């Protein structure tokens, strides 16, 4: 790790001011992704502002029947919350499909959403990577691409969003709440929270320097049958090759989002409207315009099979 200074923030306002006022400053909470990247010197913050002790950890009912999850609630705390288990099952299922018991005890809700997109070449510092070093080129194109994105990519980057939790939050129509350095608050729809790479793959979310995620809110429970199916190279502790989150209603309509296939959780509302026509129609529409490589084109038929499996279970 490169040297850095460290402070523990006394309040959210102080934390935001500390990060906004110092170039190279970063928030740290769970740290499981940031510290890993700092050890590789892929992330080199000059100053860390520890927000772990701020009062942003609670999970509380909202007056409209929804749920407000504090930014610092751990993955374990969210997955074990009685209402999440009972009414937002797809979220509990997605969280426990990701990482490990040890990591889920440390990883926070906001940190999980802000984990960096994954690519072996992003981690390999001896090779060019537009995300790690803007303008240096993409080593993945023409390289080993099995794990990487097939849709929503650009000629500059094909890294995949590795999240499981975020895929469930996408089908649940979650909203991310933040506070900005000027003290104002804003609400960002989860569908707008992860940016496509375009020609700036180093920018993965719309947050301004010092802008702090304070909570994730869920609307009223959608009802229906909740499923999260993850296809991976080993049975536990591996990133998704393809995952699918589904909330299915009795009339055959529902919501569908895919993970492991794109730079962000991949939900196409026009595609999920085709659910009554079956998985092939949904996947054809959801992956329209996909630009897979020879090494990862298998993900599209795999996504169709994963969805078919989930739908057959959901109706059983």
């Amino acid at each position, binding site marked *: 790790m490169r040297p*850095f200074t460290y402070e*523990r923030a006394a309040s959210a306002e102080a934390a935001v001011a500390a990060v906004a006022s110092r170039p190279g400053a970063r928030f740290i909470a769970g*740290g499981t992704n940031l510290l*890993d990247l700092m050890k590789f010197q892929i992330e080199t913050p000059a100053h860390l502002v520890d927000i*772990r002790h701020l009062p942003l950890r609670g999970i509380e009912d909202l007056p409209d029947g929804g749920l407000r999850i504090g930014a610092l609630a751990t993955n374990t705390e969210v997955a074990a919350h009685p209402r999440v288990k009972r009414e937002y099952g797809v979220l509990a299922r997605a969280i426990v499909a990701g990482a490990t018991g040890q*990591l889920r005890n440390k990883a926070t809700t906001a940190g999980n959403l802000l984990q960096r997109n994954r690519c072996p070449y992003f981690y390999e510092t001896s090779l060019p990577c537009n995300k790690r070093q803007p303008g240096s080129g993409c080593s993945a194109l023409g390289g080993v691409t099995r794990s990487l994105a097939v849709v929503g990519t650009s000629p500059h980057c094909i890294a995949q969003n590795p999240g499981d939790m975020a895929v469930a939050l996408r089908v649940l129509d979650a909203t991310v709440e933040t506070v900005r350095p000027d003290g104002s608050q804003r609400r960002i729809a989860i569908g707008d929270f992860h940016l496509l790479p375009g020609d700036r793959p180093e920018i993965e979310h719309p947050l301004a320097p010092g802008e702090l995620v304070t909570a994730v809110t869920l609307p009223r429970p959608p009802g229906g049958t909740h499923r999260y199916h993850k296809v991976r190279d080993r049975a536990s502790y591996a990133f998704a090759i393809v995952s699918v989150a589904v909330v299915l209603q009795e009339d055959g309509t529902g919501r569908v989002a895919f993970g492991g296939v794109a730079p962000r959780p991949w939900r196409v509302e026009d595609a999920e409207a085709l659910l009554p026509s079956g998985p092939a129609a949904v996947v054809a529409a959801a992956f329209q315009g996909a630009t897979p490589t020879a090494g990862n084109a298998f993900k599209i038929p795999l996504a169709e099979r994963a969805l078919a499996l989930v739908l057959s279970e959901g109706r059983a």
Partner: protein
Amino acid sequence: MARAQAAGTMGSVVVALTVNDERRRLDLDSRVTLLDALREHLHLTGTKKGCDHGHCGACTVLVNGVRINACLSLAAMHDGDVVTTIEGLGRPDRLHPVQAAFIAHDAFQCGYCTPGQICSAVAVLAEVEAGVPSHATGDLTAPVTLDTSELRERMSANICRCGAYSNIAEAVADVAGRS
């Protein structure tokens, strides 16, 4: 409170934490992980460094009662925390039930992963008790039963390169069956 930049040194922090029931105070480079603080500064070498990236589980310790990877946490972030390592779980003359079960079931060969396995197993039993679901859980709203698939899923982040998994699973199941 962790005090940043003590004595004007770039990245120096003072950390006060409780380790195995003892209050400890450390003056550290801000880059020191909890794992290195335990091993190199407090000389509690029971906790092991394997991959140093959260992949292998050898560094698993309990912080405020829950298991984490000590390698993926800065010591500075644990000011005020209560840490339990393998040295604090039991002693040679007064073993923790999970330690005794590992011996009874021959649940190790070289022993390098064992402290992490045991800390992890102790936490798994508490997680099951608290109703924390896993990927192997059937009904999310029913009490969790620590059957073989649950146990293997929950212990999957503790790698044993000697391959003592079947005996590790038997040792943990033995303790779980008694509680």
